[in-house]
């Protein structure tokens, strides 16, 4: 349904070229759910913003690749055509609901707008559907609350309003960029359940971006792990957790505070994320590996993805694949 091939999005800044996304390929099937995991700056959000062309250009520029959606390329199609897809066929929700809700407009106006613009539904009909959409995301007194302004809702409620808005046109794909990171665990659970139900009921395909492996494990069937603008590992979710092949995936898993023993220092990944304006000629994760592992990391050419087992892809860097070296000195 959506097929991203070798996407390259660079930012041309005064300090140089930042290779934010450098050769990412994704495949999303109808009704599927895909997770993208990585730290801040790994390129996971830029990947998704690229698909909908939501980045300021310049400084951003597509240097290569394509994003096929129903046989057409999202990256090159005329903006007019893209507008018919954006918000209609592909919806997006963001981490901070206040950046996508207009503080000056009533929720009713914002929720009915996509119906009126994209589907040409009349005012009264759109309002009925908008109320139903708010009820579907679990907002009580939807008939009254719909006439409120965004600031009159709590954080969790706003997040739900935004989800209702993204889903109101029944898009085929929902892109969710860290939609629960700012929320309480209890509200987070409600939002995740909500997205799960929409998938089941309407077959909405989901791309879910998060830094939190535990959240992704509950939502997605297939997971891509990104590091330094590239995918380092991609596998069905169960396989990724039971048999992680790349050192970065293992390090991410080990650093979840909830899973660690009390009384001992928590595991942390040493070093810093790479500077994407000065990409390493070899393996990008090498500087964060123990010295003995680093010695066997690729130094002069970049590791390519190889299919280690059916559906399980990993960057083929010997120093990062060897689990035995994870705790070496």
């Amino acid at each position, binding site marked *: 349904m959506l097929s991203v091939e070798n996407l390259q999005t660079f930012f041309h800044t005064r300090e140089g070229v930042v290779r934010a996304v450098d050769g990412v390929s994704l495949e999303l099937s109808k009704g599927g759910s895909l997770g993208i995991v990585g730290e801040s700056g790994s390129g996971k959000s830029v990947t998704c913003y690229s698909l909908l062309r939501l980045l300021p250009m310049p400084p951003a520029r597509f240097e290569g690749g394509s994003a096929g959606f129903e046989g057409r390329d999202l990256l090159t199609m005329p903006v007019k055509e893209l507008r018919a897809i954006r918000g209609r066929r592909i919806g997006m929700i963001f981490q901070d609901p206040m950046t996508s809700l207009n503080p000056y407009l009533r929720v009713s106006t914002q929720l009915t707008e996509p119906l009126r613009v994209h589907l040409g539904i009349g005012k009264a009909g759109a309002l009925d559907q908008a109320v139903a959409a708010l009820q579907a995301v679990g907002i009580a007194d939807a008939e009254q609350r719909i006439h409120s302004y965004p600031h009159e809702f*709590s954080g969790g409620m706003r997040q739900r309003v935004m989800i209702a808005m993204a889903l109101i046109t029944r898009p085929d794909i929902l892109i969710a960029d860290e939609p629960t990171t700012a929320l309480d665990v209890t509200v987070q659970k409600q939002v995740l359940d909500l997205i799960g139900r929409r998938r089941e009921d309407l077959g909405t395909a989901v791309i879910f971006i998060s830094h939190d492996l535990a959240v992704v494990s509950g939502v997605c069937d297939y997971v891509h792990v990104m590091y330094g603008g590239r995918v380092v590992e991609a596998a069905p979710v169960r396989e990724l957790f*039971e048999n992680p092949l790349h050192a970065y995936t293992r390090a991410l898993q080990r650093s979840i505070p909830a899973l660690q*023993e009390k009384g001992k220092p928590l595991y942390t990944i040493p070093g810093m994320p790479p500077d994407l304006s000065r990409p390493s000629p070899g393996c990008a994760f090498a500087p964060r590996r123990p010295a003995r592992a680093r010695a066997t990391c690729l130094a002069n050419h970049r590791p390519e993805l190889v299919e280690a087992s059916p559906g399980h892809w990993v960057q083929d860097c010997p120093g990062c694949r060897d689990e035995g070296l994870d705790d070496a000195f």
Partner: protein
Amino acid sequence: MALLEVDSLVKHFPGPRGRTVKAVDGVTFSLERGQVLGLVGESGCGKSTLSRLILQLLPPTSGRVLLEGECLSSLPPAVVRRRRLDFQMVFQDPYASLNPRLTVFSTLSEAIAARHPGMAGNRTACTEAVAALMRRVGLDARAMRKYPHEFSGGQRQRIAIARALAPEPRLIIADEPVSALDVSIQSQILNLLQGLVRDLGLTMIFVSHDLSVVKYIADDITVMYQGKLVETGPAEEVFHHPRESYTRRLLEAVPRIRFGGDRFSSG
């Protein structure tokens, strides 16, 4: 004597349509020196109001806050302002809590001078103290002339922690200090706080909605719900054998990795 005693603290706000919002509704607890108390609850449970009451940023409706036996609630405002150096706060969002127009040096030297007014004019001593503080929280002291935006989220939270440590407080209230950070950065900040508690004998209230994070750092956990403390006990006990149904509900909401067997059984 306990370092901090909170005695039947109540804060009511006027609510919509003449109703009263009981944000904090009869809270009593005490905290020993060197202890870390985890305060857990959802947004709206009153945990932030409770923090503000302890810091004397809000007057209570009734009840008392005692620091080393001295009742803060009855002190004149000018004295409270001076005593406020004794309790410092770390906030959730280091992007919002640091002044973007001040360099790290200005932010930290200002906070140091609050405790030691004599340092204000002494640039060498100030530089030295700032450098020591930065090293203490794991930052490169050479970066002291930089502005907050030049640091990553995790580093910014370290600056915020250094700023809280600068006036040598007796109590630190950390309000969701890691919830805005990446999972991998969370561990680094938790380790830092853990080390500071151990090495400096800090007393801390660690506020969070995430029981699994609190469990790691707190000696005791207290669970707050609708303005009341519903369950208090040793951290491991509350985490593994919660008595209250509300605590269990909070625990069930923590996302878990569904597979991987032993690899992901939470410890």
